[in-house]
């Protein structure tokens, strides 16, 4: 059990800054997810925490202990790798027991702990096989099993599900989270998949170009995105973000928008909050250009001048292509962002209400 603290941690590779001044505290038992597009620095952060990559500057603490320059083995963490990194020449049992063997545990004790861990992950029948002879899902379980068998202070996951097919991924998500809850081990999980982040995390760290964009619970991140990047990254389909000026008359109508410099402001509206109203009663007029069916709902793409907006509505409410429609949304679902910096402006309208 452990708390983790990143203090002004930076990592540069030559000219490139991979991680820029990361400050983060992870509470004991917390499940933290680093999410962001590839190259955002999330994996590097994880590897620095693991001790696999050297920190350029800053410090990392585990339980108040400065581990910045300690070797991985001194940090007592376990990691599940994207490609599982199972030792090809060892059997499953040997793979799982390798770390225990290195701790000079007796043969019998290793065997016992391995089989207990294997039971937990339901892979006891695979123990004598070699990694080559396993399916992708089985390998993933072996990798997780290898991590938990040591009973470490911290679990690290580096995109452990990205090589699984979607169905398996959904069930594995639940299993990993359940396992972590049961064991109560502090965990850091890296993914590029926002759904994984939203469904699994106690807290999410969103990164981009080495910089943290926002840290918060899934609900906070979803409801109060700190900037246009977070807003666009979380949610499917992503939030519509348009220059306030593009909305024309509508911009002036809402009392909340009064006094805002239209040319300097972006407005964000989630697709599910956009609804269609009659053209005559609407402040914003748009033309429907595309309709995507996604089950009981559909996505309606409409053009407001040169800007595009997506609405998510139940099918019966959907207009037809080329139809000119009026758009509306609840005032308290509007997010405003500074056009030049992309940062959130003022209070979330709904929360402030």
């Amino acid at each position: 059990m452990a708390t983790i603290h990143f203090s002004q941690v930076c990592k540069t590779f030559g000219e490139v800054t991979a991680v820029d001044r990361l400050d983060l505290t992870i509470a004991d038992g917390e499940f933290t997810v680093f999410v962001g597009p590839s190259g955002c620095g999330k994996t590097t952060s994880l590897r620095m925490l693991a001790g696999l990559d050297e920190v350029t500057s800053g410090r990392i603490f585990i339980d108040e202990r400065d581990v910045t320059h300690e070797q991985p083995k001194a940090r007592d963490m376990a990691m599940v790798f994207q490609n599982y990194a199972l030792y090809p020449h060892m059997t499953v049992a040997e793979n799982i027991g390798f770390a225990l063997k290195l701790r000079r545990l007796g043969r019998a004790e290793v065997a016992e702990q391995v089989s207990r861990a294997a039971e937990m992950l339901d892979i006891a029948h695979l123990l004598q096989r070699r990694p080559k002879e396993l399916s992708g899902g089985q390998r993933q379980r072996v990798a997780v099993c290898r991590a938990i068998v040591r009973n470490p202070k911290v679990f690290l996951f580096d995109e452990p599900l990205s090589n699984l097919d979607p169905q398996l991924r959904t069930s594995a998500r639940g299993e990993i989270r359940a396992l972590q809850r049961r064991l109560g081990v502090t965990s850091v999980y890296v993914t590029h998949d926002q759904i994984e982040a939203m469904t699994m995390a106690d807290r999410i760290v969103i990164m981009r170009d080495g910089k943290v964009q926002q840290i918060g619970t899934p609900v906070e991140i979803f409801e109060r995105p700190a900037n246009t990047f977070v807003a666009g990254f979380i949610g499917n389909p992503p939030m519509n973000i348009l220059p306030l000026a593009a909305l024309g008359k509508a911009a002036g109508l809402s009392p909340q928008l009064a006094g805002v410099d239209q040319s300097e402001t972006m407005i964000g509206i989630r697709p599910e909050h956009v609804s269609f109203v009659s053209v005559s009663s609407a402040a914003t007029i748009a033309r429907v250009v595309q309709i995507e069916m996604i089950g009981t709902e559909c996505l309606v793409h409409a053009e407001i001048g040169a800007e595009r907006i997506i609405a998510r509505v139940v099918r019966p409410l959907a207009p037809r292509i080329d139809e000119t429609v009026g758009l509306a949304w609840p005032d308290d679902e509007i997010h405003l962002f500074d056009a030049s910096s992309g940062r959130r402006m003022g209070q979330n309208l709904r929360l402030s209400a």
Partner: protein
Amino acid sequence: MTQTLELVATTRIERTAARRKIDLRPAVFLAPFVVLVALFTYWPLIQLVYLSLFKLNRSGPDRFIGADNFLGVLDNAQFHDAAYNSLIYIFLSIPFKVFLPIPLAVFIWTMGAKLGNFYKAALFLPTLLSFVVVSIVWIWMLNPVMGLFQSVIGPLGLQMPSLLSDVASAIYVIIGVGAWKLIGFNILLYLAGLSAISRDYVEAMRLDGAGDWVVLRRLIVPLLSPTILFVAISTVVFTIQQVFTPIDVMTQGGPLNSTTNLFYLVYQYMFESFNVGYSAAGALLIFLLLGLIIAAKMIWFEKLVHYS
């Protein structure tokens, strides 16, 4: 618990007090090799440079003679034959020693274990023999009057030509014997490389309707290219270094300099005429030549590797 981050932070990146430690691990792992190579390869090489520029004097200080040794080596009539032959040795060794073993290795690779092992073992046997013995045995084999080949073709009324004493053919015999000795080793290297090729690729390509040739050309050769590069380089090194044994035993560079090469020439300077200066100068010239050839090869293969 929300932390809202100040994005436009003004704090300067402050280096950790405990500065980044220099990672000593590579140094530790490299130390034994580097020390030994420095001591037993590069230090002698530096001394060779010295020996090539100075004339050793048994009484008094050594005398600087500049490029005299190099000019002397270059002015030698044999040097030109030797340089030309060296190129022949190197370039002809490529098809015989580098490319020919590829299909052979692939054939063995596709065979059952039993037969494959037999071929592997048989082809590897010459590698185990010393080159002196190999050369003597081949002299017998090729003997135009009573060699094994003559006794096979003799009854058919044919006469084995005297390959080793003919200016036109002697060098090819020596190249052939070198290939004979090396082929099994290179096959083994290729088999090690092939073992890393996943069956999935082959099957995938088969499903795409690829024939043997396409699989070989488009899949196996590209995947094998790092091994091929290694084989090519080791073969060139081997060829230039080791070929002097068959030359010495079989032809002594003759007839009419047709089989001598630079290495043999340098060897002669050193061991037959105690001409240390020429030997050093010649050695450096070879070093230069080999470096150029290998660099060219690296570039060429690097392209090949990247292309695939």
